[in-house]
């Protein structure tokens, strides 16, 4: 199996301060991986690095021919203005961006696919509603419907189920499982370890540095989790230059 992303001693961060450093390994194409770790351990930064919103401070990050538009990305705090006067259908249709771009028309077939996506996330008949009228969970369903249309081989989810109720989480997890069945590469930042154990075959545990990476059962062992909790939270303004040698 080819690698979706391969990382060789990658360090990502801001202003020379690493958020996560010396990460080496691969997200294989078609794999379903959970990224787990304490708050501030560099999980979101890692996703931003994978999609290319952030360049590595060090090391090499290979996307193996994946272009940015092949990657669907659901940020943790989307910069979405939820009071914006736009309907659910129009929001979902944006998932067709690769086809419609700035100028091309939205055909009836594309519209039908959007309706199907709404059905798939349990929002049948919501198309005409303004997004301002949706609950948090309903809005997350809309964003999943949009990702369904994006039809990308790689999907990155940053805490997709935070502040989402059990029913919605279950429905959206079913969508994730469907993506996995379609051999898409899915990488999700998560906090609920039981959820990870049940649904995600692979796990990367980080805590500003890699703790363990591999099969979920192997990674989520007590000693690894203990190790992750010992993370140094500090942003030290006088931090020394990292001398750790390249592995």
């Amino acid at each position, binding site marked *: 199996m080819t690698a979706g992303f391969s990382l060789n001693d990658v360090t990502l961060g801001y202003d020379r301060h690493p958020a996560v450093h010396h990460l080496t390994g691969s997200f294989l194409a078609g794999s379903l991986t959970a990224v787990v770790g304490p708050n501030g351990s560099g999980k979101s930064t890692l996703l931003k690095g994978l999609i290319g919103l952030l360049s590595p401070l060090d090391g090499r990050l290979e996307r193996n021919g994946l*272009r*940015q538009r092949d990657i669907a990305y659901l940020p943790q705090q989307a*910069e*979405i203005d939820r009071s*914006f*006067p736009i309907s659910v259908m129009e*929001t979902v249709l*944006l998932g067709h*961006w690769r086809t419609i771009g*700035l100028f091309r028309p939205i055909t009836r077939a594309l519209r039908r696919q959007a309706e199907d996506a709404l059905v798939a996330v349990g929002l049948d008949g919501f198309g005409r509603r303004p997004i301002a009228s949706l609950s948090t969970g309903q809005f997350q369903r809309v964003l999943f419907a949009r990702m369904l249309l994006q039809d990308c081989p790689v999907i990155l989810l940053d805490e997709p189920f935070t502040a989402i109720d059990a029913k919605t989480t279950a429905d959206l997890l079913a969508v994730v499982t469907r993506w996995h069945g379609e051999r898409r590469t899915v990488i999700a930042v998560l906090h609920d370890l039981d959820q990870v154990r049940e649904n995600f075959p692979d796990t990367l545990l980080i805590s500003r540095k890699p703790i363990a990476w591999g099969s979920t059962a192997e990674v989520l062992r007590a000693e690894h989790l203990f190790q992750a909790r010992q993370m140094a939270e500090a942003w030290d303004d006088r931090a020394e230059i990292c001398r750790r040698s390249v592995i």
Partner: protein
Amino acid sequence: MDPYAALIQPFVEFGFMRRALVACLALSLGCGPVGVLLVLRRMSLVGDALSHAVLPGAAIGFMIAGLSLVVMGFGGFIAGLAVAVLSGLVARVTPQREDASFAAFYLISLALGVLIVSTRGSNVDLVHVLFGTILAVDDASLLLVVSIATLTLVVLAVIGRGLIVECFDPGFLRAVGGPGAILHFAFLVLVVMNLVAGFHALGTLMAVGLMMLPAAAARFWAGQVTTLAATSSAIALAAGYAGLLLSFHANLPSGPAIILVAGGVYIVSVVAGPRGSLRTRFLPRRHLEA
């Protein structure tokens, strides 16, 4: 006074009133949608800043060619654009946010403009530049205002989808590789262009009024981008028409009269509009079943 004499006759009788009305129509068509997008982007005050930024360019134009609205408009366009580009640049390459950099550059620009006008022109000219001359719009500047409105509508038709996405979900546009920065810049060009058009008619101080007040009022009447834009244009046109009549009959300066009518519409909208107004808040109707 019979209705014909009050509402129609001034325009039939006087060419300058007809031209002023056509200028208002053109302004309304361009400023309506641009104002709505400004409000949706939470950039209402940036519009204000840009309208002041236009001044030094207009003043330099005035020094070169006297009270030629075309030359002054061109100068204003360049000055406004320079402020937009410089503030955008500072916001992109430093941690400073765009509202602060906009404020900085527009203040520099405004001071420069007042300096130029007051050293080189008489006070009457300053009043012209600041408060506009819609009742003295000549054919050349009418053509300019109408061309700007036409170009604005064409550009909006072409890049409207991009502008809306860039405003609604900029992160998504970035993630799918959309040209966010180019769209943002194109939008600022549209804003400056329409301010220049408005400044011909209403003066630099009032130009932004016909852009922001109708757009802010429209929010209480409409709930989609397209209907908001249409409502905003309609309000702007009504304000232009009523303001011109008011200034004609009561012998008031036309610019402030137009903007005050628009302001009146805004206040009525806040109080009594059907969407989120004070009326819906304090006199709610019985709730629905679902």
